[in-house]
């Protein structure tokens, strides 16, 4: 695939690169099998795949939470393979991650959860008096500034997911990893969450990996852009965004390309994620 070129002719820097990465647990078959791809700044990657195809493990390996059994992982062009935990903290501060079950800390309020990365990321130094405005701004981004003193157990599933997005973006990281952001949510809430992901991408020019098993999530990200004037999502078509689709099957990458290529793909596994009845009807 040709490298995207910026208007001044320089190629976009690589933010995340997998080179023949394999991950296995004990003597089981590999969860990720010799996976290679390169995420460049400005891209949004939609990772589709069935349950157990290695999507979540891929994100955790990218974050350095799981160490690969083989291959190399590069973050911001720095080899992070098998680095010690303490050495990874600095580079992790440049990444925001939304976990599948939100992973908010039960014992902390919403405000404390969102402030957590600001207080604990050593690479991020923020004056004490700037802490609350930053938390408030991040919560207002997800339209939940009125929940600051609530505990996660007092929130609905969708609200918890939005607070987790606020926590992921509070440090303005250039790279965001979203693990099944719409899993288990009703269609309306799922749309709200995906709209927030598009808004974050377009308002802050971030690069993102979105793991999902719903094609409509990818379709929204690939075809819509956030309009800061109207505060709504405007349809721009696949050419209006830099979205790449990846399809995972049993730890292997079976497709990588844009939406047009994905919809044209005749592979029986890939088509299961694309040719949904509602799309065909449309």
């Amino acid at each position: 695939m040709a490298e995207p070129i910026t208007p001044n002719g320089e190629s976009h820097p690589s933010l995340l690169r997998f080179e023949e990465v394999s991950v296995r647990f004990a003597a089981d078959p590999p969860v990720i099998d010799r996976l290679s791809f390169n995420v460049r700044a400005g891209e949004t990657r939609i990772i589709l795949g069935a349950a157990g195809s290695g999507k979540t493990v891929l994100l955790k390996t990218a974050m350095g939470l799981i160490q690969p059994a083989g291959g190399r992982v590069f973050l911001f062009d720095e080899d992070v393979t098998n680095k010690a935990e303490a050495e990874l903290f600095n580079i992790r501060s440049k990444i925001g991650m939304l976990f599948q079950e939100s992973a908010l800390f039960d014992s902390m309020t919403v405000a404390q959860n969102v402030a957590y990365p600001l207080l604990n990321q050593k690479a991020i130094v923020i004056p004490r008096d700037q802490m609350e405005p930053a938390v408030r701004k991040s919560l207002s981004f997800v339209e939940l500034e009125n929940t600051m003193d609530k505990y996660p157990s007092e929130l609905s599933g969708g609200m918890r997911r939005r607070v987790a997005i606020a926590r992921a973006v509070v440090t303005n990281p250039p790279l965001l990893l979203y693990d099944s952001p719409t899993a288990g949510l009703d269609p309306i809430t799922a749309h709200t969450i995906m709209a927030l992901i598009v808004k974050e991408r377009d308002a802050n020019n971030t690069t993102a990996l979105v793991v999902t098993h719903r094609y409509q999530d990818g379709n929204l990200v690939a075809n819509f852009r956030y309009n800061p004037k109207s505060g709504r999502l405007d349809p721009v078509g696949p050419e209006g965004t830099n979205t790449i689709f990846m399809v995972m099957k049993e730890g292997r990458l079976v497709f990588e390309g844009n939406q047009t290529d994905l919809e044209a793909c005749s592979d029986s596994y890939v088509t299961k994620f694309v040719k949904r009845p509602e799309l065909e009807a449309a």
Partner: protein
Amino acid sequence: MLDTLKGPIQAVQDFCELTGRAIRNVFRKPHYVDDILLQMESIGVGSVPIVLLTGFFSGAVMAMQMGRGLQDYGQTGRTGQFVSIILVRELGPVLTGVMVAGRNSSGIASELGSMKVTEQIDAMRALGTDPIQKLVTPRMIAAALMLPCLTIVDDFVGMIGGWIMANVLFSVPGRQYWSTVWRALVWSDVGQGLTKPFIFSFAVSLIGCYYGLRATGGTQGVGRATTQAVVWASIAIFVLDLFVSKIFIAISQIGT
């Protein structure tokens, strides 16, 4: 054969690694003082009621049984001496350890296990915190500080229970009882009685943390981790008790 041993050996290795990292973190920044105080409140203050109850009744029942035996020799006046030595050297530390293991090892394992299966531990790592520094070390420090204190409470309440029984059942005067209690103890008994809970505290906190942090498989896994933590912490307390007792006996023999 080797495959059978692989699991337990791996578990011991992982536990030793966790212990090493938790102890090393005591001397490294950042120190989560708030978490240490919170855990001291939970492990220490929270365990006081069960320690009071078990201490009182264990002391009372011991005085009752000892008094009956000593009655045959007309030595009921020495009940306090036996209650005192057994409580301070053995029963106080072990009972307190087992009770706190039942209450806190299980609590620690279920709390950390729930955090593990809901990805909160991964989130903590992703957000720049070492989970051992933030979760394990404060619990270890809090248990090490509070378990000897709880043992002192347990010993004292047990002596009160023994005094009531000795007085009511065998008419031992209070002055005589407390005098024999006091005179029976030597410094090595006090040293032994405080060293044991200090050592047991590591079993109570670290075994709970170990099983919590390796919990897998949802709520069922958390339940399994909780049970294993209590069982192994209790067993560890009895095993450690044997070794520490042997060491103190050997030291006292060298002294004489």
